[in-house]
């Protein structure tokens, strides 16, 4: 029969267990509507199941494939939303660009969640809040050199996680 990985209902259940949280988290961020996000995730797994025979793990990861489907679903939902007159006046744009930007942002945010607390903390303080290393070191009660090395290991960890998530630069 088919060599695709999503042709049996059990495959879908496994795919759901592995990736639904991520897809849903991103859908909520992207659509800013938990109800719509649920709809998007449901539609994503339905389409994945219908096209299950076309999924080839040799070409790309299941995660990447599911996100590609979600991308189309979100765009379709955006179009449907824009087609409703009341919402269209609100200016919902069914454009691809915000999706890709949101996906990139979400991937980095997800990677940040997955690295260690200490690493995330110094990146937030030194990079996003722009605070001096000495000040952050004093606040954390560690030498300044430790803050510096945590920044280094934090960025390295971030890169590893992003690669695991399928990010390519």
């Amino acid at each position, binding site marked *: 029969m088919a060599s695709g990985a999503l042709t049996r209902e059990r495959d879908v259940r496994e795919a759901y267990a592995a990736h639904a949280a991520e897809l849903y988290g991103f859908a909520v961020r992207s659509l800013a509507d938990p109800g719509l996000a649920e709809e998007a995730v449901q539609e994503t797994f339905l389409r994945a199941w219908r096209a299950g025979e076309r999924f080839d793990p040799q070409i790309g990861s299941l995660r990447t494939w599911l996100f590609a489907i979600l991308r189309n679903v979100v765009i379709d939902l955006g179009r449907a939303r824009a087609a409703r007159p009341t919402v269209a006046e609100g200016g919902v744009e069914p454009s691809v660009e915000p999706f890709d930007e949101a996906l990139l942002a979400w991937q980095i945010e997800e990677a940040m969640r997955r690295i260690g607390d200490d690493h995330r903390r110094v990146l*937030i303080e030194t990079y996003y809040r722009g605070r001096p290393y000495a000040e952050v070191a004093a606040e954390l009660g560690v030498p300044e050199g430790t803050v510096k090395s945590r920044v280094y290991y934090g960025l390295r960890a*971030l890169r590893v996680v992003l690669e695991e998530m399928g990010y390519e630069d």
Partner: protein
Amino acid sequence: MKTDGCRHWKESLGAYALGHLSAEERAALEAHLEGCPACRDEAAALASVAGLLPHADPARFGPAPLPPPELGKRIAATIDAERRSQRRQRRFRIGLGFGGAAATAAAAAVLAIFVLSGGDGGSPEQHVSFRSLPPGVRIAAALEPQAYGTEIHMYVKGISSGTLCRVYMRGADGRDVSAGTFRYRWGGDAAAVLSAALDLSRAKALVVHAGNQTFVAPIGAGEAALRNQPQEEEPT
């Protein structure tokens, strides 16, 4: 010696990638990078990660919302329902293929019926094939018992586009129960779904009036009347 020296430099590479080194520190590190390909590679890798940071929103580094627990079950139920309906359609198509071949092979035969057992343990669904049809015309139907009567999936091909088709189920008492009407359209490949308030077990025949022509195919018990007809083999 080299590894020891690099450890010191490497731990500055993060701050370097983020532009956090003082001018002197930066100059010293860049002098080292000139002569150390390994550190240069690492600096480039970190620079690409650092370049991504502006895209993220630090207010969103907290736990992401989780899907509601029932979502997985809902998806499984939807897929299950779709799988069942696909299986029905697949059986229906098998029936059509068979009916089409039979119509060409035995033009003189009046009527034929076959009942497919289906793949899931004796489905009560029945497939009905109309024969002695004009060349190029195909009519078939799948019947499924429902609480309200019978669901009828009609499939018609090869008659004039726009032809009004009226469908009836003929009961054991010989009375016709209307299953409704549909119009055949060129290019429309989908089966019309109709229903009749007659229990499938009590139905004797399916009657289709297409334009001014009438076609009748026996259902279930009607098979007995065809005992003398050559029997078709079941498709595999």
